[in-house]
Protein backbone atom coordinates (compact mmCIF):
# COMPACT_ATOMS: atom_id res chain seq x y z
CA UNK A 1 0.00 0.00 0.00
CA UNK A 2 2.74 2.37 1.00
CA UNK A 3 4.52 1.59 -2.19
CA UNK A 4 1.45 2.46 -4.18
CA UNK A 5 1.21 5.87 -2.53
CA UNK A 6 4.86 6.46 -3.17
CA UNK A 7 4.46 5.52 -6.79
CA UNK A 8 1.50 7.90 -7.09
CA UNK A 9 3.54 10.71 -5.56
CA UNK A 10 6.35 10.11 -7.96
CA UNK A 11 4.26 10.02 -11.03
CA UNK A 12 1.64 12.50 -9.82
CA UNK A 13 2.09 14.70 -12.82
CA UNK A 14 1.56 11.84 -15.21
CA UNK A 15 -1.49 10.60 -13.37
CA UNK A 16 -2.92 14.07 -13.24
CA UNK A 17 -2.31 14.59 -16.92
CA UNK A 18 -4.11 11.37 -17.76
CA UNK A 19 -7.00 12.35 -15.52
CA UNK A 20 -7.12 15.80 -17.10
CA UNK A 21 -7.14 14.36 -20.56
CA UNK A 22 -9.98 11.96 -19.79
CA UNK A 23 -11.99 14.58 -17.96
CA UNK A 24 -11.77 17.27 -20.56
CA UNK A 25 -11.82 14.78 -23.41
CA UNK A 26 -15.15 13.39 -22.26
CA UNK A 27 -16.57 16.87 -22.00
CA UNK A 28 -15.21 17.74 -25.42
CA UNK A 29 -16.78 14.72 -27.05
CA UNK A 30 -20.06 15.44 -25.32
CA UNK A 31 -19.90 19.00 -26.67
CA UNK A 32 -19.40 17.74 -30.21
CA UNK A 33 -22.28 15.28 -30.02
CA UNK A 34 -24.62 17.83 -28.54
CA UNK A 35 -23.58 20.36 -31.16
CA UNK A 36 -24.70 18.05 -33.92
CA UNK A 37 -28.07 17.61 -32.27
CA UNK A 38 -28.46 21.35 -31.70
CA UNK A 39 -27.46 22.20 -35.23
CA UNK A 40 -30.20 19.98 -36.53
CA UNK A 41 -32.97 21.33 -34.37
CA UNK A 42 -32.02 24.97 -34.65
CA UNK A 43 -34.71 26.81 -36.54
CA UNK A 44 -33.29 27.52 -39.99
CA UNK A 45 -33.44 30.98 -41.46
CA UNK A 46 -36.09 30.96 -44.17
CA UNK A 47 -36.23 33.18 -47.27
CA UNK A 48 -39.36 34.82 -45.90
CA UNK A 49 -39.59 35.18 -42.12
CA UNK A 50 -43.01 33.54 -41.92
CA UNK A 51 -44.35 33.38 -38.40
CA UNK A 52 -46.75 30.57 -37.51
CA UNK A 53 -47.28 32.36 -34.24
CA UNK A 54 -48.93 35.33 -35.88
CA UNK A 55 -50.95 33.35 -38.39
CA UNK A 56 -52.06 30.41 -36.23
CA UNK A 57 -52.08 31.74 -32.68
CA UNK A 58 -53.13 35.31 -33.32
CA UNK A 59 -55.15 35.09 -36.52
CA UNK A 60 -56.43 31.56 -35.76
CA UNK A 61 -55.87 30.20 -39.26
CA UNK A 62 -56.19 26.40 -39.28
CA UNK A 63 -53.26 24.23 -40.41
CA UNK A 64 -55.30 22.81 -43.25
CA UNK A 65 -56.11 26.25 -44.65
CA UNK A 66 -52.62 26.53 -46.03
CA UNK A 67 -51.36 22.95 -45.96
CA UNK A 68 -54.34 22.10 -48.16
CA UNK A 69 -53.54 18.64 -49.26
CA UNK A 70 -52.48 17.09 -45.99
CA UNK A 71 -55.61 14.97 -45.75
CA UNK A 72 -55.52 13.87 -49.32
CA UNK A 73 -51.88 13.36 -50.05
CA UNK A 74 -48.83 11.62 -48.70
CA UNK A 75 -47.06 14.95 -48.63
CA UNK A 76 -48.20 17.94 -46.54
CA UNK A 77 -46.29 20.47 -48.56
CA UNK A 78 -45.68 24.14 -48.16
CA UNK A 79 -48.53 26.21 -49.57
CA UNK A 80 -48.31 27.74 -53.01
CA UNK A 81 -47.76 31.51 -53.06
CA UNK A 82 -51.28 31.80 -54.44
CA UNK A 83 -52.63 30.87 -51.04
CA UNK A 84 -50.56 33.56 -49.32
CA UNK A 85 -51.75 36.12 -51.83
CA UNK A 86 -55.39 35.31 -51.05
CA UNK A 87 -54.98 37.58 -48.04
CA UNK A 88 -51.80 39.42 -48.76
CA UNK A 89 -53.04 40.92 -51.97
CA UNK A 90 -54.60 43.45 -49.66
CA UNK A 91 -53.43 42.76 -46.13
CA UNK A 92 -50.30 44.39 -44.72
CA UNK A 93 -49.06 45.11 -48.21
CA UNK A 94 -46.59 47.73 -47.12
CA UNK A 95 -44.73 45.50 -44.67
CA UNK A 96 -41.24 44.63 -45.94
CA UNK A 97 -41.73 40.84 -45.71
CA UNK A 98 -44.96 41.07 -47.71
CA UNK A 99 -43.22 43.18 -50.31
CA UNK A 100 -40.65 40.38 -50.65
CA UNK A 101 -43.47 37.86 -50.93
CA UNK A 102 -45.11 39.88 -53.64
CA UNK A 103 -41.87 39.96 -55.62
CA UNK A 104 -41.83 36.17 -55.70
CA UNK A 105 -45.46 36.19 -56.87
CA UNK A 106 -44.91 38.72 -59.59
CA UNK A 107 -41.77 37.08 -60.86
CA UNK A 108 -43.40 33.64 -60.67
CA UNK A 109 -40.47 32.37 -58.65
CA UNK A 110 -41.01 29.63 -56.08
CA UNK A 111 -39.96 30.39 -52.52
CA UNK A 112 -37.07 28.10 -51.62
CA UNK A 113 -38.19 27.10 -48.15
CA UNK A 114 -35.58 25.31 -46.03
CA UNK A 115 -36.93 21.88 -45.13
CA UNK A 116 -37.46 21.33 -41.44
CA UNK A 117 -38.84 17.79 -41.30
CA UNK A 118 -37.56 14.98 -43.50
CA UNK A 119 -37.43 11.23 -43.40
CA UNK A 120 -35.29 8.89 -45.48
CA UNK A 121 -36.44 8.26 -49.04
CA UNK A 122 -36.71 4.52 -48.42
CA UNK A 123 -39.40 5.07 -45.82
CA UNK A 124 -43.00 5.25 -46.95
CA UNK A 125 -44.96 7.77 -44.89
CA UNK A 126 -48.29 9.23 -45.86
CA UNK A 127 -49.87 12.27 -44.17
CA UNK A 128 -53.31 11.37 -45.52
CA UNK A 129 -53.58 8.19 -43.55
CA UNK A 130 -52.39 9.76 -40.32
CA UNK A 131 -54.61 12.82 -40.59
CA UNK A 132 -57.62 10.66 -41.38
CA UNK A 133 -56.83 8.57 -38.33
CA UNK A 134 -57.47 11.71 -36.32
CA UNK A 135 -53.91 12.43 -35.24
CA UNK A 136 -53.49 16.11 -34.50
CA UNK A 137 -50.65 17.89 -36.29
CA UNK A 138 -49.24 18.88 -32.88
CA UNK A 139 -48.47 15.31 -31.95
CA UNK A 140 -45.60 15.03 -34.43
CA UNK A 141 -44.79 18.63 -35.19
CA UNK A 142 -45.02 20.16 -31.74
CA UNK A 143 -46.60 23.45 -30.72
CA UNK A 144 -46.28 25.07 -34.11
CA UNK A 145 -48.91 27.65 -33.21
CA UNK A 146 -46.48 29.27 -30.79
CA UNK A 147 -43.41 29.18 -33.00
CA UNK A 148 -42.21 32.44 -34.45
CA UNK A 149 -39.71 30.44 -36.43
CA UNK A 150 -40.53 26.91 -37.54
CA UNK A 151 -38.24 24.41 -35.90
CA UNK A 152 -37.94 20.67 -35.67
CA UNK A 153 -39.06 19.31 -32.34
CA UNK A 154 -38.20 15.65 -32.91
CA UNK A 155 -36.15 13.49 -35.19
CA UNK A 156 -38.97 11.17 -36.28
CA UNK A 157 -36.90 8.10 -35.56
CA UNK A 158 -38.30 4.67 -36.24
CA UNK A 159 -38.54 3.73 -32.59
CA UNK A 160 -40.80 6.67 -31.91
CA UNK A 161 -43.08 5.79 -34.84
CA UNK A 162 -43.29 2.16 -33.76
CA UNK A 163 -44.19 3.12 -30.17
CA UNK A 164 -47.17 5.08 -31.35
CA UNK A 165 -48.18 2.39 -33.85
CA UNK A 166 -48.16 -0.17 -31.05
CA UNK A 167 -50.23 2.06 -28.77
CA UNK A 168 -52.80 2.88 -31.43
CA UNK A 169 -53.00 -0.65 -32.79
CA UNK A 170 -51.68 0.35 -36.19
CA UNK A 171 -49.75 -2.20 -38.27
CA UNK A 172 -46.21 -2.71 -37.08
CA UNK A 173 -44.90 -5.12 -39.66
CA UNK A 174 -41.96 -4.03 -41.73
CA UNK A 175 -43.70 -3.81 -45.04
CA UNK A 176 -46.08 -1.12 -43.77
CA UNK A 177 -43.37 1.48 -44.10
CA UNK A 178 -40.51 -0.22 -45.89
CA UNK A 179 -42.26 -0.97 -49.13
Amino acid at each position, binding site marked *: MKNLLEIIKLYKLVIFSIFLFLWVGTVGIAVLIISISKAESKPPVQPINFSHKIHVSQLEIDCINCHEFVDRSPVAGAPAIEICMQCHEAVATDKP*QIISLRKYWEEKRPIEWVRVYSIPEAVYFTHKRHVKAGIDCKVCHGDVANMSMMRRVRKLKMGWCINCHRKENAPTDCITCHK
Partner: protein
Amino acid sequence: MNLIGKDILLPLPAPLIFLKWLLVISFLLHIIFVNLMLGGALFGVIYRVIGRYKRDIFYERFAREIILTTTVTKSIAVVLGVAPLLSISLVYTKFFYGANGITAPYWLSVPLLVMTAFLLLYIYKFTWDTLGKRFFIHLLFGITACTILFFIPFIFLTNINLMLYPDTWNNVRGFWSALVLPNVIPRYLHFITASLAITGFFSYFLFKYRAGRRSTSDADFYIRSSKLGILWALVATLAQAIFGLINFITLPDVAFSWHVTILVIVALIVAVLVSFFLFQEYHSENTRFGLPIFFLITVLILIMGTLRHVIRENALEIPKQVLAENTEYYQMQLARFKEEELAEVKPSTGKELFAAYCIVCHAFDKRLIGPPLSYIREKYATDREKMIEFIKEPKKVNPEYPKMPKLGLPKEDISKIVDYIYSK
Protein backbone atom coordinates in the same frame (compact mmCIF):
# COMPACT_ATOMS: atom_id res chain seq x y z
CA MET B 1 -48.29 39.25 -30.19
CA ASN B 2 -45.33 41.23 -31.40
CA LEU B 3 -43.83 42.72 -28.30
CA ILE B 4 -40.69 43.77 -30.11
CA GLY B 5 -42.26 46.91 -31.55
CA LYS B 6 -40.10 49.66 -32.95
CA ASP B 7 -36.71 51.02 -32.00
CA ILE B 8 -35.82 54.45 -30.62
CA LEU B 9 -36.01 56.84 -33.56
CA LEU B 10 -32.60 58.41 -33.18
CA PRO B 11 -29.32 57.30 -34.74
CA LEU B 12 -26.67 55.53 -32.71
CA PRO B 13 -23.96 57.86 -31.42
CA ALA B 14 -21.12 55.70 -32.72
CA PRO B 15 -20.64 52.90 -35.24
CA LEU B 16 -22.33 49.70 -34.12
CA ILE B 17 -19.14 47.68 -34.32
CA PHE B 18 -17.40 50.11 -31.96
CA LEU B 19 -20.23 49.89 -29.45
CA LYS B 20 -20.17 46.09 -29.60
CA TRP B 21 -16.44 45.95 -28.96
CA LEU B 22 -16.86 48.42 -26.11
CA LEU B 23 -19.59 46.24 -24.66
CA VAL B 24 -17.62 43.01 -24.81
CA ILE B 25 -14.34 44.41 -23.45
CA SER B 26 -15.80 46.66 -20.76
CA PHE B 27 -18.10 43.89 -19.62
CA LEU B 28 -15.18 41.49 -19.24
CA LEU B 29 -13.29 43.99 -17.09
CA HIS B 30 -16.41 44.58 -15.01
CA ILE B 31 -17.18 40.91 -14.49
CA ILE B 32 -13.62 40.08 -13.43
CA PHE B 33 -13.93 42.53 -10.56
CA VAL B 34 -17.40 41.27 -9.72
CA ASN B 35 -15.94 37.76 -9.56
CA LEU B 36 -13.21 39.04 -7.24
CA MET B 37 -15.75 40.81 -5.06
CA LEU B 38 -17.93 37.73 -4.72
CA GLY B 39 -15.07 35.32 -4.22
CA GLY B 40 -13.34 37.66 -1.82
CA ALA B 41 -16.45 38.04 0.30
CA LEU B 42 -17.07 34.30 0.31
CA PHE B 43 -13.49 33.42 1.23
CA GLY B 44 -13.56 36.14 3.87
CA VAL B 45 -16.43 34.35 5.53
CA ILE B 46 -15.71 30.66 5.11
CA TYR B 47 -12.06 30.92 6.10
CA ARG B 48 -13.01 32.88 9.18
CA VAL B 49 -15.23 29.98 10.14
CA ILE B 50 -12.59 27.40 9.27
CA GLY B 51 -10.00 29.38 11.19
CA ARG B 52 -12.15 29.34 14.28
CA TYR B 53 -12.57 25.60 14.27
CA LYS B 54 -9.18 24.51 13.02
CA ARG B 55 -7.28 26.59 15.52
CA ASP B 56 -4.76 27.52 12.90
CA ILE B 57 -4.16 31.25 12.66
CA PHE B 58 -3.32 30.88 9.00
CA TYR B 59 -6.97 30.65 7.97
CA GLU B 60 -8.11 33.68 9.87
CA ARG B 61 -5.30 35.76 8.52
CA PHE B 62 -6.07 34.55 5.00
CA ALA B 63 -9.72 35.52 5.46
CA ARG B 64 -8.74 38.93 6.70
CA GLU B 65 -6.30 39.64 3.90
CA ILE B 66 -8.73 38.57 1.24
CA ILE B 67 -11.62 40.56 2.67
CA LEU B 68 -9.46 43.68 2.64
CA THR B 69 -9.08 43.35 -1.10
CA THR B 70 -12.83 43.71 -1.51
CA THR B 71 -12.58 47.39 -0.54
CA VAL B 72 -10.94 48.02 -3.84
CA THR B 73 -12.47 45.31 -6.00
CA LYS B 74 -16.07 46.15 -5.20
CA SER B 75 -15.78 49.85 -6.01
CA ILE B 76 -13.97 49.12 -9.24
CA ALA B 77 -16.62 46.50 -10.09
CA VAL B 78 -19.38 49.08 -9.73
CA VAL B 79 -17.66 51.85 -11.63
CA LEU B 80 -16.66 49.48 -14.43
CA GLY B 81 -20.27 48.33 -14.65
CA VAL B 82 -21.41 51.63 -16.10
CA ALA B 83 -19.71 51.20 -19.47
CA PRO B 84 -21.32 47.85 -20.32
CA LEU B 85 -24.65 49.08 -18.95
CA LEU B 86 -24.65 52.05 -21.30
CA SER B 87 -23.35 50.06 -24.26
CA ILE B 88 -25.92 47.33 -23.92
CA SER B 89 -28.63 49.96 -23.51
CA LEU B 90 -27.56 51.45 -26.82
CA VAL B 91 -26.94 48.38 -28.93
CA TYR B 92 -29.91 46.32 -27.73
CA THR B 93 -32.25 49.02 -26.43
CA LYS B 94 -35.59 47.34 -27.07
CA PHE B 95 -34.48 43.95 -25.84
CA PHE B 96 -32.63 45.12 -22.77
CA TYR B 97 -35.21 47.66 -21.60
CA GLY B 98 -37.97 45.19 -22.45
CA ALA B 99 -36.42 42.62 -20.13
CA ASN B 100 -35.81 45.28 -17.45
CA GLY B 101 -39.46 46.25 -17.60
CA ILE B 102 -40.69 42.69 -17.30
CA THR B 103 -38.60 41.99 -14.19
CA ALA B 104 -38.98 45.57 -12.98
CA PRO B 105 -39.38 45.37 -9.20
CA TYR B 106 -36.47 42.95 -8.87
CA TRP B 107 -34.30 44.79 -11.40
CA LEU B 108 -34.84 48.02 -9.49
CA SER B 109 -33.85 46.39 -6.23
CA VAL B 110 -30.32 45.70 -7.52
CA PRO B 111 -28.70 49.06 -6.59
CA LEU B 112 -30.32 48.90 -3.17
CA LEU B 113 -29.19 45.32 -2.59
CA VAL B 114 -25.65 46.07 -3.76
CA MET B 115 -25.48 49.08 -1.49
CA THR B 116 -26.69 47.06 1.50
CA ALA B 117 -24.17 44.33 0.77
CA PHE B 118 -21.36 46.90 0.54
CA LEU B 119 -22.30 48.48 3.85
CA LEU B 120 -22.42 45.07 5.51
CA LEU B 121 -19.03 44.22 4.03
CA TYR B 122 -17.61 47.48 5.40
CA ILE B 123 -18.96 46.63 8.84
CA TYR B 124 -17.63 43.08 8.60
CA LYS B 125 -14.21 44.41 7.67
CA PHE B 126 -13.95 47.28 10.11
CA THR B 127 -15.24 45.40 13.15
CA TRP B 128 -12.96 42.41 12.60
CA ASP B 129 -11.06 43.10 15.80
CA THR B 130 -13.62 44.94 17.86
CA LEU B 131 -16.34 42.36 17.32
CA GLY B 132 -13.85 39.51 17.20
CA LYS B 133 -14.99 38.24 20.59
CA ARG B 134 -18.62 38.05 19.52
CA PHE B 135 -17.89 35.62 16.78
CA PHE B 136 -21.41 34.86 15.64
CA ILE B 137 -22.57 38.45 15.49
CA HIS B 138 -19.53 39.42 13.50
CA LEU B 139 -19.99 36.46 11.19
CA LEU B 140 -23.64 37.36 10.67
CA PHE B 141 -22.64 40.56 8.92
CA GLY B 142 -20.39 38.63 6.58
CA ILE B 143 -22.93 35.90 5.90
CA THR B 144 -25.71 38.39 5.19
CA ALA B 145 -23.45 40.32 2.83
CA CYS B 146 -22.57 37.09 1.02
CA THR B 147 -26.18 35.97 0.79
CA ILE B 148 -27.15 39.24 -0.83
CA LEU B 149 -24.16 39.19 -3.16
CA PHE B 150 -24.96 35.65 -4.22
CA PHE B 151 -28.61 36.46 -4.88
CA ILE B 152 -27.97 39.50 -7.07
CA PRO B 153 -26.44 37.53 -9.98
CA PHE B 154 -29.81 35.74 -10.32
CA ILE B 155 -31.42 39.08 -11.10
CA PHE B 156 -28.73 40.05 -13.59
CA LEU B 157 -28.69 36.68 -15.31
CA THR B 158 -32.46 36.51 -15.53
CA ASN B 159 -32.50 39.88 -17.27
CA ILE B 160 -29.61 39.23 -19.58
CA ASN B 161 -31.11 35.91 -20.56
CA LEU B 162 -34.66 37.20 -21.00
CA MET B 163 -33.51 39.91 -23.36
CA LEU B 164 -32.17 37.29 -25.77
CA TYR B 165 -35.44 35.46 -26.27
CA PRO B 166 -38.26 37.90 -27.04
CA ASP B 167 -40.35 34.91 -28.10
CA THR B 168 -40.66 33.94 -24.47
CA TRP B 169 -41.90 37.36 -23.35
CA ASN B 170 -45.50 36.42 -24.03
CA ASN B 171 -45.33 33.57 -21.59
CA VAL B 172 -43.32 35.24 -18.87
CA ARG B 173 -45.04 37.27 -16.17
CA GLY B 174 -42.14 38.60 -14.14
CA PHE B 175 -38.85 37.76 -12.44
CA TRP B 176 -39.66 34.29 -11.11
CA SER B 177 -41.14 32.93 -14.34
CA ALA B 178 -38.15 34.36 -16.21
CA LEU B 179 -35.72 32.84 -13.72
CA VAL B 180 -36.70 29.30 -14.65
CA LEU B 181 -36.23 29.83 -18.37
CA PRO B 182 -33.33 28.01 -19.93
CA ASN B 183 -30.60 28.53 -19.24
CA VAL B 184 -30.46 30.96 -16.34
CA ILE B 185 -29.66 28.60 -13.50
CA PRO B 186 -26.89 26.76 -15.39
CA ARG B 187 -25.39 30.16 -16.20
CA TYR B 188 -25.58 31.09 -12.54
CA LEU B 189 -23.68 27.98 -11.48
CA HIS B 190 -21.12 28.62 -14.20
CA PHE B 191 -20.74 32.20 -12.98
CA ILE B 192 -20.28 31.25 -9.32
CA THR B 193 -17.65 28.67 -10.21
CA ALA B 194 -15.92 31.31 -12.33
CA SER B 195 -15.87 33.64 -9.32
CA LEU B 196 -14.13 30.97 -7.28
CA ALA B 197 -11.65 30.33 -10.06
CA ILE B 198 -10.84 34.00 -10.67
CA THR B 199 -10.46 34.69 -6.97
CA GLY B 200 -8.20 31.66 -6.78
CA PHE B 201 -6.02 33.02 -9.58
CA PHE B 202 -6.04 36.45 -8.00
CA SER B 203 -4.97 35.06 -4.62
CA TYR B 204 -2.21 33.11 -6.30
CA PHE B 205 -0.75 36.19 -8.00
CA LEU B 206 -1.34 38.65 -5.17
CA PHE B 207 0.12 36.53 -2.41
CA LYS B 208 3.00 35.37 -4.56
CA TYR B 209 3.86 39.02 -5.11
CA ARG B 210 3.59 39.81 -1.42
CA ALA B 211 5.72 36.76 -0.55
CA GLY B 212 8.53 38.17 -2.61
CA ARG B 213 8.53 41.41 -0.65
CA ARG B 214 8.33 40.28 2.96
CA SER B 215 10.54 38.76 5.61
CA THR B 216 10.82 34.98 5.84
CA SER B 217 8.19 34.41 8.55
CA ASP B 218 5.66 36.46 6.63
CA ALA B 219 6.75 34.89 3.38
CA ASP B 220 5.67 31.48 4.69
CA PHE B 221 2.16 32.74 5.19
CA TYR B 222 2.06 34.25 1.74
CA ILE B 223 3.43 31.17 0.05
CA ARG B 224 0.83 29.03 1.75
CA SER B 225 -1.89 31.55 0.78
CA SER B 226 -0.68 31.54 -2.76
CA LYS B 227 -0.91 27.75 -2.89
CA LEU B 228 -4.42 27.88 -1.49
CA GLY B 229 -5.28 30.20 -4.34
CA ILE B 230 -3.83 27.76 -6.85
CA LEU B 231 -5.88 24.95 -5.37
CA TRP B 232 -9.12 26.91 -5.73
CA ALA B 233 -8.20 27.95 -9.24
CA LEU B 234 -7.45 24.39 -10.25
CA VAL B 235 -10.52 22.76 -8.74
CA ALA B 236 -12.84 25.48 -10.03
CA THR B 237 -11.36 25.39 -13.52
CA LEU B 238 -11.87 21.64 -13.68
CA ALA B 239 -15.39 21.99 -12.32
CA GLN B 240 -16.13 24.58 -14.99
CA ALA B 241 -15.84 21.87 -17.59
CA ILE B 242 -18.97 20.30 -16.10
CA PHE B 243 -20.87 23.52 -15.46
CA GLY B 244 -19.93 24.76 -18.87
CA LEU B 245 -21.20 21.53 -20.37
CA ILE B 246 -24.52 21.84 -18.54
CA ASN B 247 -24.75 25.39 -19.84
CA PHE B 248 -24.11 24.14 -23.33
CA ILE B 249 -26.69 21.37 -23.11
CA THR B 250 -29.41 23.72 -21.89
CA LEU B 251 -28.57 26.45 -24.40
CA PRO B 252 -31.68 27.18 -26.45
CA ASP B 253 -31.28 25.97 -30.03
CA VAL B 254 -31.76 29.37 -31.56
CA ALA B 255 -28.62 30.61 -29.78
CA PHE B 256 -26.48 27.82 -31.14
CA SER B 257 -24.09 27.98 -34.05
CA TRP B 258 -20.92 26.07 -34.88
CA HIS B 259 -18.87 29.10 -33.78
CA VAL B 260 -20.04 28.35 -30.28
CA THR B 261 -18.78 24.79 -30.48
CA ILE B 262 -15.40 25.88 -31.81
CA LEU B 263 -14.97 28.46 -29.07
CA VAL B 264 -15.93 25.92 -26.41
CA ILE B 265 -13.44 23.36 -27.73
CA VAL B 266 -10.66 25.95 -27.81
CA ALA B 267 -11.59 27.02 -24.28
CA LEU B 268 -11.38 23.40 -23.13
CA ILE B 269 -7.90 23.09 -24.62
CA VAL B 270 -6.76 26.28 -22.91
CA ALA B 271 -8.31 25.04 -19.67
CA VAL B 272 -6.28 21.85 -19.98
CA LEU B 273 -3.08 23.83 -20.36
CA VAL B 274 -3.90 26.12 -17.44
CA SER B 275 -4.75 23.16 -15.23
CA PHE B 276 -1.50 21.51 -16.19
CA PHE B 277 0.54 24.57 -15.26
CA LEU B 278 -1.44 25.12 -12.07
CA PHE B 279 -0.79 21.56 -10.98
CA GLN B 280 2.93 22.03 -11.54
CA GLU B 281 2.88 25.35 -9.74
CA TYR B 282 1.19 23.81 -6.73
CA HIS B 283 3.81 21.12 -6.34
CA SER B 284 6.95 23.09 -7.09
CA GLU B 285 8.93 25.45 -4.94
CA ASN B 286 10.46 27.68 -7.57
CA THR B 287 7.55 29.33 -9.27
CA ARG B 288 8.15 29.64 -12.96
CA PHE B 289 4.74 29.46 -14.49
CA GLY B 290 3.26 32.76 -13.41
CA LEU B 291 3.52 34.38 -16.80
CA PRO B 292 2.14 31.54 -18.94
CA ILE B 293 -0.72 31.09 -16.49
CA PHE B 294 -1.56 34.76 -16.67
CA PHE B 295 -1.42 34.72 -20.42
CA LEU B 296 -3.58 31.61 -20.67
CA ILE B 297 -6.32 32.82 -18.36
CA THR B 298 -6.43 36.10 -20.24
CA VAL B 299 -7.01 34.10 -23.41
CA LEU B 300 -9.63 31.99 -21.64
CA ILE B 301 -11.47 35.05 -20.38
CA LEU B 302 -11.40 36.61 -23.85
CA ILE B 303 -12.80 33.40 -25.32
CA MET B 304 -15.62 33.40 -22.77
CA GLY B 305 -16.41 37.02 -23.53
CA THR B 306 -16.52 36.30 -27.24
CA LEU B 307 -18.67 33.23 -26.61
CA ARG B 308 -21.26 35.29 -24.76
CA HIS B 309 -21.38 37.75 -27.60
CA VAL B 310 -21.71 35.09 -30.30
CA ILE B 311 -24.59 33.48 -28.40
CA ARG B 312 -26.26 36.84 -28.01
CA GLU B 313 -25.93 37.67 -31.68
CA ASN B 314 -27.26 34.24 -32.69
CA ALA B 315 -30.30 34.53 -30.48
CA LEU B 316 -31.09 38.08 -31.57
CA GLU B 317 -30.49 37.63 -35.29
CA ILE B 318 -34.13 37.31 -36.24
CA PRO B 319 -35.57 39.60 -33.52
CA LYS B 320 -33.24 42.37 -34.70
CA GLN B 321 -34.52 41.90 -38.20
CA VAL B 322 -38.11 42.09 -36.96
CA LEU B 323 -37.25 45.23 -34.99
CA ALA B 324 -35.70 46.89 -38.02
CA GLU B 325 -38.73 46.06 -40.12
CA ASN B 326 -41.16 47.34 -37.52
CA THR B 327 -39.20 50.57 -37.21
CA GLU B 328 -39.04 51.04 -40.97
CA TYR B 329 -42.74 50.36 -41.24
CA TYR B 330 -43.60 52.91 -38.57
CA GLN B 331 -41.43 55.59 -40.09
CA MET B 332 -43.02 54.97 -43.44
CA GLN B 333 -46.50 55.29 -41.97
CA LEU B 334 -45.52 58.46 -40.16
CA ALA B 335 -44.00 60.00 -43.27
CA ARG B 336 -47.07 59.19 -45.31
CA PHE B 337 -49.31 60.67 -42.63
CA LYS B 338 -47.31 63.86 -42.55
CA GLU B 339 -47.60 64.18 -46.31
CA GLU B 340 -51.33 63.79 -46.14
CA GLU B 341 -51.54 66.26 -43.29
CA LEU B 342 -49.73 68.91 -45.33
CA ALA B 343 -52.07 68.39 -48.22
CA GLU B 344 -55.07 68.58 -45.96
CA VAL B 345 -57.26 71.58 -46.16
CA LYS B 346 -56.50 73.90 -43.29
CA PRO B 347 -59.46 75.49 -41.57
CA SER B 348 -60.01 78.73 -43.43
CA THR B 349 -63.55 79.96 -42.95
CA GLY B 350 -64.67 81.60 -39.76
CA LYS B 351 -66.84 78.62 -38.99
CA GLU B 352 -63.98 76.13 -39.46
CA LEU B 353 -61.62 78.23 -37.40
CA PHE B 354 -64.16 78.53 -34.63
CA ALA B 355 -64.67 74.79 -34.64
CA ALA B 356 -60.92 74.24 -34.51
CA TYR B 357 -60.02 76.65 -31.75
CA CYS B 358 -62.97 77.98 -29.77
CA ILE B 359 -65.72 75.42 -29.57
CA VAL B 360 -63.90 73.52 -26.87
CA CYS B 361 -64.55 76.24 -24.32
CA HIS B 362 -67.36 78.37 -25.78
CA ALA B 363 -70.85 77.07 -26.52
CA PHE B 364 -73.63 79.22 -27.89
CA ASP B 365 -75.96 79.66 -24.98
CA LYS B 366 -74.47 77.78 -22.10
CA ARG B 367 -71.34 78.10 -20.09
CA LEU B 368 -68.70 75.49 -20.74
CA ILE B 369 -65.34 76.70 -19.64
CA GLY B 370 -65.63 80.22 -20.95
CA PRO B 371 -68.76 82.39 -21.25
CA PRO B 372 -71.43 81.53 -23.87
CA LEU B 373 -71.40 83.34 -27.21
CA SER B 374 -74.64 85.07 -26.39
CA TYR B 375 -72.87 86.84 -23.53
CA ILE B 376 -69.85 87.67 -25.68
CA ARG B 377 -71.96 89.05 -28.53
CA GLU B 378 -73.81 91.27 -26.12
CA LYS B 379 -70.66 92.49 -24.44
CA TYR B 380 -68.96 93.50 -27.66
CA ALA B 381 -72.17 94.41 -29.53
CA THR B 382 -70.84 97.80 -30.50
CA ASP B 383 -67.09 97.41 -30.36
CA ARG B 384 -65.74 94.88 -32.88
CA GLU B 385 -62.16 96.01 -32.52
CA LYS B 386 -62.24 95.38 -28.78
CA MET B 387 -63.28 91.77 -29.32
CA ILE B 388 -60.45 91.25 -31.80
CA GLU B 389 -58.04 92.82 -29.35
CA PHE B 390 -59.23 90.60 -26.52
CA ILE B 391 -58.88 87.41 -28.56
CA LYS B 392 -55.41 88.50 -29.57
CA GLU B 393 -54.30 89.32 -26.03
CA PRO B 394 -56.71 87.79 -23.56
CA LYS B 395 -56.68 89.14 -20.03
CA LYS B 396 -58.44 88.01 -16.91
CA VAL B 397 -61.46 90.27 -16.63
CA ASN B 398 -64.21 88.20 -15.08
CA PRO B 399 -63.43 86.61 -11.71
CA GLU B 400 -65.99 83.87 -12.44
CA TYR B 401 -64.19 82.50 -15.45
CA PRO B 402 -60.60 81.20 -15.82
CA LYS B 403 -58.22 83.28 -17.87
CA MET B 404 -58.50 82.59 -21.59
CA PRO B 405 -55.22 81.30 -23.05
CA LYS B 406 -53.50 83.14 -25.85
CA LEU B 407 -54.02 81.20 -29.08
CA GLY B 408 -51.40 82.86 -31.24
CA LEU B 409 -53.65 83.22 -34.26
CA PRO B 410 -52.96 85.77 -37.00
CA LYS B 411 -55.21 88.83 -37.20
CA GLU B 412 -57.04 87.77 -40.37
CA ASP B 413 -58.10 84.50 -38.76
CA ILE B 414 -59.29 86.30 -35.63
CA SER B 415 -61.22 88.68 -37.85
CA LYS B 416 -63.01 85.77 -39.52
CA ILE B 417 -63.85 84.21 -36.16
CA VAL B 418 -65.25 87.48 -34.92
CA ASP B 419 -67.43 87.83 -38.02
CA TYR B 420 -68.69 84.32 -37.49
CA ILE B 421 -69.55 85.01 -33.85
CA TYR B 422 -71.52 88.10 -34.84
CA SER B 423 -73.35 86.20 -37.54
CA LYS B 424 -74.75 83.53 -35.20
